[in-house]
């Protein structure tokens, strides 16, 4: 019989967790609760003596200074309703796992098969609540019913029943292992039904290709030798579905596009990926010649560039959108610990040096009705922020850079971008660190977590729109500590040369990781029955495609396997040999002695013809807002500073450890009170060197409403100008593209697919054009193409979004520049020209308009200016620099001024203007988001030096830093257009998200 150990806070000890929930009930649900208190509950389902249970309760499970405990005796008192929330069977329970380990240390004996400890939390609610209110609190806040279970007891029932009975959420059900054969000799509508019902996300054409394969007599003859019939097994079909999913195969980026522009010019594009992304890198590298710093691009889990002669940099950015929509906490946690495995599994393995994250949400204060399956944006915000917090902080990787972007359409799917950079030795055991290979005969080894039913169909479900029936199993919860243990072990195994090849288990699970590895040497033979399981009862196909977390796949030479496994045991990491790599051209899966899948590698990887994708560009026309000439824009500036896309994100950023590993040089906040928004991050990954890694990003989905070409150009420019601002060098900088699109494939569900596809083409065109001008090779990236919600009536598509990230180097981090003004009397310069480019701006968004005049990037001129500016940084003549983006000059000036604690006097008549003079007015000068601009301050004694080095570039001195803590801007006719004290501007900027 399972025992319940309850742990409660002693009287008088503050319950911070309860207080936080009370606040959230008030904020989210507008219900008035008097008091919320919490208890920890450990349900121990193991043969322990009374004494051992008491030792566990008094020892590892409770803190004697602040807590009391009981065994099978409820501790709750003074409440109206008690709620208990725990995980559903099979869901990762990190606390339960740690509790179990703690008990094993205590008793000195391991748990028997089937024994376990399960964790849950008891919430005690007091106040005039009805049962309906309580249900609302539980389902709206305390419990995500996808992954968690709950029970509610009123105080009366609680005392009548003696509290909650012990409940053991053990996975039960059939333990009979089954391999089904699927009959594909059926009509087309049934083929489609097989795909739909199985969450295979295969199209009719793809199903027919598989059907054809199983009609080939040669294939059938070969299958017969292994005891297989003419029908595919479920293992085979599921494996093909994963391998061919949009998520894994990138069919849209690999497809053939028929593009027609606004003038009717037609063009056939064979693979956007090859034609634009890969070509960008190839062309830039060719031009760089012997200055080329790219080491490994597009072929591994992450891109690798040179850092110095001894070390290489690794970088990858991923998205985890669909899981985060269903379970924001688990989805985002898995997002960050998942992307950690990418650089870790690149080359022979890298040490992880920083994380970045960018979240796109709908307004957390959203007050309109939402389709039933969608969680409220505020809940997504809370869950995602917390998931990444736990994933990043617990892994000991600093989160150094990020953004929050808001648009109502992200209610359909939030975007959760997580990035991780790593550092690897240039040479490991005599071989380039970024290279790896497999020899036939090498053993297939899986390390880390065990396999469960979690994350089944993650790859295929995210290859479709989110809908009412999106599967529960697609969601996983990450376990950063199991992963950290594994990394601690593997990095040491790498240095000892104990493995030859490493890669991560992500989307598609083993089917994808081993499938790709088998591609390296030409085949594999693997016994799925050997895979370690979390609980019995998984069918072979489930073992093959489960996306259970914290696993790496390796190729270990047979002569090293004993040492590898012995070391794993010492480090408390599970390592299992599953089979071996071959060169016979077949992906061969066994379950014990029986063959359950026999797939020719060529068919798996090359069997799919390119998709045919129509694309037609028709430029949209928006109403051009009529601007009232105002005498004073101070109120508009304050409104902008409070806008979600501009306001301070400090309440989120401070929850992320941005300094662990000790190399922090430019932090997320700068200035006299450590609260001004930095443009980019610098870290020193090697503590006895001053070489710094610089990272920054650009993202501007609003411009997609006008033209994705310019959205993309501006995103690339924003990333680079942020990077340049802090002192990043243009000689060693690379880019990563993350496309998040709404479905661009023309269909009944997506009648405007050709337009969305044209948007994708234009975005790629800009990517090539601007990266070429900036000498920016692309080293890695990812696309997520189905960011829509559709429940049959309501469709919500996200705005096409490109996150552009850059990584590069500053030779001497001691020369870094921050965005806060430094001292009164400094001269203020604006680098770059301003134009009548308010289209898609935050200023227009204030009045709900879009406009048409989107900022145009003049990359060639900007690149020259960025180089000159970098020269000024190197000679030490720049006191501060802030990039101009959302909200334009007025916002940048306000931020630099209040960050530095000094005022600024600026004169708009001195600003360099580009384009038609007719459009020149105070409003455009203040708020236009024209690209490639920086606001700089320079000490007067450096003036000459600074102007000399900038000579020949577009820049203008527009004012001065003042002792008086006021922002004073005069307009074209000499009158004051903005006058505000810094304190009120800062308050406007800080108030919006302060309490979240």
């Amino acid at each position, binding site marked *: 019989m399972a025992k319940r150990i309850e742990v409660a806070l002693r009287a008088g*000890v503050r319950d*911070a*967790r309860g*207080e*936080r929930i009370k606040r959230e009930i008030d904020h989210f649900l507008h219900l008035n609760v008097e008091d919320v208190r919490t208890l920890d509950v450990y349900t121990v389902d193991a043969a322990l003596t009374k004494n051992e249970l008491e030792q566990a309760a008094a*020892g*590892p*499970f409770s*803190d*004697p*200074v*602040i807590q009391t405990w009981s065994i099978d005796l409820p501790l709750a008192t003074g409440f109206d309703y008690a709620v208990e929330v725990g995980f559903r069977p099979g869901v990762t329970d*990190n*606390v339960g*796992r*740690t*509790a179990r*380990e*703690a008990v094993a*240390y*205590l008793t*000195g004996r391991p748990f028997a098969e089937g024994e376990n400890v399960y964790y849950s939390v008891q919430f005690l609610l007091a106040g005039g609540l009805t049962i309906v209110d309580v249900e609302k609190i539980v389902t709206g806040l305390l419990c995500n019913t996808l992954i968690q279970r709950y029970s509610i007891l009123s105080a009366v029932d609680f005392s009548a029943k003696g509290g909650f009975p012990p409940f053991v959420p053990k996975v039960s059900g059939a333990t009979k292992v089954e391999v089904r054969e699927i009959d594909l000799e059926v009509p087309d509508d049934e083929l489609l039904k097989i795909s739909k019902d199985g969450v295979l996300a295969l199209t009719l054409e793809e199903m027919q290709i598989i059907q054809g394969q199983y009609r080939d007599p040669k294939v059938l003859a070969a299958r017969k030798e292994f005891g297989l019939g003419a029908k595919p097994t479920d293992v085979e079909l599921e494996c093909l579905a994963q391998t061919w999913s949009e998520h894994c195969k990138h069919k849209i980026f690999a497809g053939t596009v028929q593009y027609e522009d606004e003038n009717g010019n037609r063009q056939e594009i064979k693979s956007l990926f090859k034609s634009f992304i890969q070509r960008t890198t190839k062309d830039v590298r060719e031009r760089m010649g012997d200055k080329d710093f790219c080491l490994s691009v597009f072929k591994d889990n992450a891109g690798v560039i040179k850092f110095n002669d001894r070390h290489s940099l690794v970088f990858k950015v991923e998205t985890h959108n669909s899981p985060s929509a269903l379970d924001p906490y688990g989805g985002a946690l898995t997002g960050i610990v998942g992307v950690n495995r990418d650089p870790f599994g690149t080359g022979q393995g890298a040490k992880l040096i920083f994380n970045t994250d960018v979240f796109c949400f709908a307004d957390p204060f959203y007050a309109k009705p939402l389709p039933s399956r969608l969680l409220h944006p505020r809940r997504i915000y809370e869950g995602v922020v917390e998931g990444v*917090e736990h994933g990043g*902080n*617990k*892994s*000991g990787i600093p989160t150094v850079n990020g953004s929050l972007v808001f648009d109502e359409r992200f209610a359909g799917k939030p975007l959760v971008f997580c990035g991780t950079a790593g550092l690897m030795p240039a040479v490991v055991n005599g071989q380039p660190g970024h290279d790896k290979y497999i020899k036939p005969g090498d053993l297939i080894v899986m390390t880390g977590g065990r396999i469960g039913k979690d994350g089944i169909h993650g790859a295929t479900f995210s290859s479709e729109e989110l809908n009412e029936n999106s599967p529960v199993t697609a969601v996983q919860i990450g*376990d*950063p*500590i199991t992963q950290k*243990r594994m990394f*601690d072990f593997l990095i040491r195994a790498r240095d000892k040369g104990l493995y030859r090849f490493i890669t991560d288990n992500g989307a598609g699970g083993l089917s994808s990781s081993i499938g790709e590895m088998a591609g390296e040497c030409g085949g594999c033979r693997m016994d799925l029955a050997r895979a370690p399981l979390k609980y019995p009862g998984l069918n072979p196909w489930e073992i093959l495609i489960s996306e259970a977390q914290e696993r790496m796949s390796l190729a270990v030479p047979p002569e090293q396997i004993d040492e590898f496994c012995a070391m794993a045991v*010492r*480090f*408390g990491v599970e390592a299992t040999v599953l089979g071996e790599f071959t060169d016979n051209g077949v992906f061969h899966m066994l379950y014990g002695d029986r063959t359950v899948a026999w797939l020719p590698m060529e068919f798996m990887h090359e069997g799919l013809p390119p998709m045919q994708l129509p694309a037609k560009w028709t430029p949209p026309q928006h109403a051009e807002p009529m601007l009232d000439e105002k005498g004073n824009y101070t109120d508009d500036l304050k409104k902008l500073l409070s806008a979600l896309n501009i306001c301070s994100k400090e309440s989120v950023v*401070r*929850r*992320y*450890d*941005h*300094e*662990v*590993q*000790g*190399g922090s*040089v430019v*932090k997320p906040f*700068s*200035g*006299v009170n*450590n609260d001004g928004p930095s443009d980019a991050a610098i870290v*020193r990954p090697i*503590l006895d060197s*001053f070489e710094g890694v610089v990272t920054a990003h650009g993202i501007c989905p609003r411009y997609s409403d006008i033209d994705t070409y310019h959205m993309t150009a501006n995103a690339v420019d924003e990333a680079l100008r942020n990077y340049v601002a802090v002192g990043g060098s243009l000689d060693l900088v690379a880019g990563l593209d993350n496309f998040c699109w709404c479905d661009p494939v023309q269909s009944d569900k997506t009648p405007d697919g050709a337009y969305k596809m044209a948007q994708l083409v234009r975005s790629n065109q800009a990517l090539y054009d601007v990266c070429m001008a900036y000498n920016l090779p692309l080293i890695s990236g990812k696309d997520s193409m189905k960011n829509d919600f559709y429940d049959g009536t309501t469709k919500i598509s996200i705005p096409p979004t490109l996150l552009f990230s850059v990584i590069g180097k500053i030779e001497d*981090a001691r020369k*870094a*520049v*921050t965005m*806060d003004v*430094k001292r009164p009397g400094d001269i203020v310069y604006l680098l770059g020209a301003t134009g009548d480019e308010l289209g898609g701006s935050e200023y227009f968004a204030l009045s709900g308009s879009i406009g048409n005049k989107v900022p145009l990037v003049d990359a060639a001129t900007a690149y020259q200016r960025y180089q000159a500016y970098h020269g000024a940084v190197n000679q030490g003549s720049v006191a501060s620099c802030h990039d101009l983006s959302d909200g334009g000059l007025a916002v940048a000036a306000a931020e630099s001024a209040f960050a530095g604690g000094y005022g600024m006097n600026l004169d708009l008549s001195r600003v360099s203007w580009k384009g038609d003079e007719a459009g020149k007015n105070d409003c455009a000068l203040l708020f236009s988001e024209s690209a490639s601009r920086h606001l700089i301050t320079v000490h007067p004694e450096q003036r000459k030096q600074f102007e000399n080095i900038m000579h020949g570039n577009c820049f203008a001195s527009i004012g001065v830093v003042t002792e008086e803590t006021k922002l004073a801007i005069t307009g074209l006719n000499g009158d004051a257009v903005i006058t505000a004290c810094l304190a009120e501007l800062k308050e406007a900027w800080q108030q919006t998200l302060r309490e979240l």
Partner: protein
Amino acid sequence: MKQTRAIVITGNGTNCEMEAAHACKLGGFDETVIAHIAEILSGDIRLDDFHFLNLTGGFLDGDDLGSAKAQANRLKNASVVGTDEKLVEQFTRFISNGKLILGVCNGFQLMVKMGMLPGFDGNYLQQTVTLTHNDCGRFQDRWTCLKVDSDSPCVFTNGIAKGIYLPVRHGEGKFLCDSAATLARIEDGHLAVLRYSDAGYTEAATEFPVNPNGSTNAIAALCDPTGRLMGMMPHPEAFVHYTQHPRWTRETLPEEGDGLVLYKNAAEHVKRNLI
């Protein structure tokens, strides 16, 4: 000449081992070893071979049972492989041999939960104080001013005039005692080495965010009566060079960061007393 040797324990979720080892090196230790707990449990590395033990920041076992609880349980109960020796015996021997221990953040949490601090009457295995969830209910990464108790017996803070400026990065840093008597004994013995304070290091701070977690009497660090064991929530290893300071681009700062003095004092003490 004999070597001064520092050890930094890592594994199971410890995160700050690299910068802690770097700080030991800058502080003057001849040798610093980063040892995975697995290498200590296997007997490959023994604490007896070192003079200065660093228990540093991280999330031991994910802080799943409360910060550092699971590791405290592991250290108390686990045995060194192939011997009868409990690991905890290596710790108590280390202490009784007059050696130094610095616990930072998660390491401080571990020390109080094992009972190593405040360590009254030579009892280093009796928990009387704790560190728990911040009043604000959230993890916080922010820099804090720390006023030093110059009458403290603490070896590490020797010579600090008024205070030091260091970052905190924790979700469970609120210091609490089991009784008023324990608190009085800590304060009377000048064992509360550092307190969160105003920028001038004059007044202990009670209000968020200057006091980031709501600690009793703003206590941020604790030492034992010998002064050789110290635990602190702020991170000294995170400020050993000026470029780590949040305002280094606008202030004139010395080359060395405020946290380095702790490691220098440790190295100096080892040289004078243990070599």
